């Protein structure tokens, strides 16, 4: 087990290193420089800024400096937010995105899985159709449309909830629901398909031949086996949700991390983009690692393979 963890760790570190390197050079090949976009700066001032941030040095030198800092967990200064480090920006915005993400997952995961199970158990019945319809509509409405409508109906028309911002618990409801709906729809679809797949397995027939009741078969035989594909998608899903979603954050004016992903790239804020990419990579690798451990708990065959 220790050896396995060590091996995973080494692979993860190499992955992150390659990721950082590729992103670093990719970003630098983009046309333009970070200060060009601000019209107020003269060419001379732009050059001063470039040299202030060390961007006029040879590329390889910059790369090694960056890597050295990265090793110490230092993502450097943002090129756009004067005097703010990338670390401090992440520190202040990530908790907001993560909270929104966790709230949505806490809603979507149990409901999505339950709907998937219910729908598969009642295949071809009314309940199944209702679940399938909800799920397919859920994945077919883009989040920015869903978010806008929810906001319009519940905040502007009915005035039940705050329109935007992230302050009290009431502020969290609409964005949580908007995000949770699409997650829930996806989970329902996958869980339903997975349950149906398991239903056709021989061991379900064995369980029936033992005389077990349908409820018993569902809970102790089907659900656990059907969870395996869900776990596979859970790693990337959790990572992307906790890292913030640009659309929801923009619509509801939430000070989260998601907006920085988009803004930093379009604004050529190299250090910010680099920092976010590496942070995301580390987060995803960790999430996948946790998922693999969970995998082992659910599926004994995998435990031995280690």
């Amino acid at each position, binding site marked *: 087990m220790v050896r396995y963890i060590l091996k995973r760790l080494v692979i993860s570190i190499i992955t992150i290193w390659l990721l950082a390197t590729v992103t670093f050079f990719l970003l630098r090949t983009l046309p333009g420089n970070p200060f060009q976009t601000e019209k107020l700066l003269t060419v001379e001032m732009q050059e001063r800024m470039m040299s202030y941030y060390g961007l006029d040095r040879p590329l390889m030198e910059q790369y090694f400096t960056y890597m050295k800092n990265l090793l110490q967990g230092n993502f450097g200064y943002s090129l756009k937010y004067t005097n703010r480090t990338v670390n401090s920006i992440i520190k202040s915005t990530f908790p907001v995105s993560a909270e929104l993400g966790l709230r949505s997952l806490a809603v979507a995961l149990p409901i999505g899985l339950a709907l998937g199970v219910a729908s598969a158990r009642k295949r071809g019945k009314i309940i199944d159709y209702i679940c399938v319809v909800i799920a397919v509509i859920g994945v077919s409405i883009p989040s920015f449309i869903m978010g806008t409508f929810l906001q319009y109906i519940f905040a502007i028309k009915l005035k039940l909830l705050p329109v935007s911002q992230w302050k009290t618990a009431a502020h969290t409801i609409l964005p949580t629901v908007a995000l949770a709906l699409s997650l829930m729809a996806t989970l329902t679809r996958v869980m339903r398909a997975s349950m149906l797949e398991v239903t056709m397995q021989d061991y379900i027939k*064995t369980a029936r*031949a*033992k*005389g077990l*009741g349908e409820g018993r078969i569902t809970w102790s035989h089907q659900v656990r086996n059907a969870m395996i594909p869900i776990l596979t998608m859970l790693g990337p899903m959790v990572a992307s949700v906790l890292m913030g979603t640009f659309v929801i954050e923009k619509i509801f004016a939430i000070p989260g991390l998601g907006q920085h992903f988009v803004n930093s790239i379009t604004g050529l804020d190299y250090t910010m983009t680099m920092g976010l990419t590496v942070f995301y990579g580390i987060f995803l690798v960790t999430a996948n690692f946790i998922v693999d451990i969970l995998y082992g708990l659910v599926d004994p065959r995998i435990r031995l393979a280690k």
Partner: protein
Amino acid sequence: MSRKILEIKDLHFSFDTYAGEVQAVRGISLYLNKGETLAIVGESGCGKSVTVQTVMKLVPTPPGRLKSGKIIYCGEDITHYSQKEMQKLRGSEMSMIFQDPMTSLNPTMRIGRQITEGILKHENISPDKAKQRAIEMLAKVGIANPEKGFKRYPHQFSGGMRQRVMIAIALVCNPNVLFADEPTTALDVTTQAQILELINELKQELETSVVIITHDLGVVARTAERVAVMYAGKIVETGLSRDIFYKPKHPYTSGLLESMPSAGQVEKTLTSIKGTPPDLFAPPKGCSFAPRCKYCMNICTQTDPDEVQLENGHKVSCWLMNPQAEKRELPGRKSRLSTQKPLKEGI
């Protein structure tokens, strides 16, 4: 009480598919005596599994549909039992072992629990007692170190061992009838012999009646007192094993016997039956074996033959049995089987 523990009368079972009705079982009648082993043999797809799974109501309906017929267990008509009522019978009164031990155990559940959940369902005993019973059963089916085996997962066992576990699951509640659906097809030859041996032993010990399904007449010879030969959803010949082996009356049975290797038969190539079984979507007019039959006559392609009774409960459905037909001597078994144990006396 009658000696018949299970009786099936004129069973018709179909599947409704997009393409139409598949008549998987077309009028089967058979019975099982207390304590005996009945073998059902026939080519792949002739409806063997559907027949026995219909008795246990394990075929999903729809697409399956019981069209007509009666199933009588211990004198009681269970044909129209609900799934709830069947759950009480399954596992405790009748159980089933499936063909592929690799897929018929739940991979994410410990062997022990897979055995005890059946006991706990049917008997009102404490989990500890159930565990005790399960471990005893594991020992009985020949799992070395049953306490340890109890805690293991299926993938930690070989195919033969898993089939032993399946047998333990099936027999732990001491059912009256065991359906073994090709229990040895997926195993290698030596393991096959051991598993059959085990089924025979446990059957004696627990006084279970067994229905064993197989393609392999060698298996029949090792286990069964009586045989039912199925072809295209019907039973074409049935009788005591020795009658079927040495005095087959149906060309299909005879063909099966000829295609079976025996001791001392090394060089001679095996003769197999030419052609493929008919389509169960639209079974042909007349005898369904006619298109492949060496002795096919005009009448065979027109009308299905009715059953003819011979001695010892030997029954056959073939136009050759008609007094007007030319007498034919059908080849049966000449030498003893290579792996043969003495055949038990029939009833």
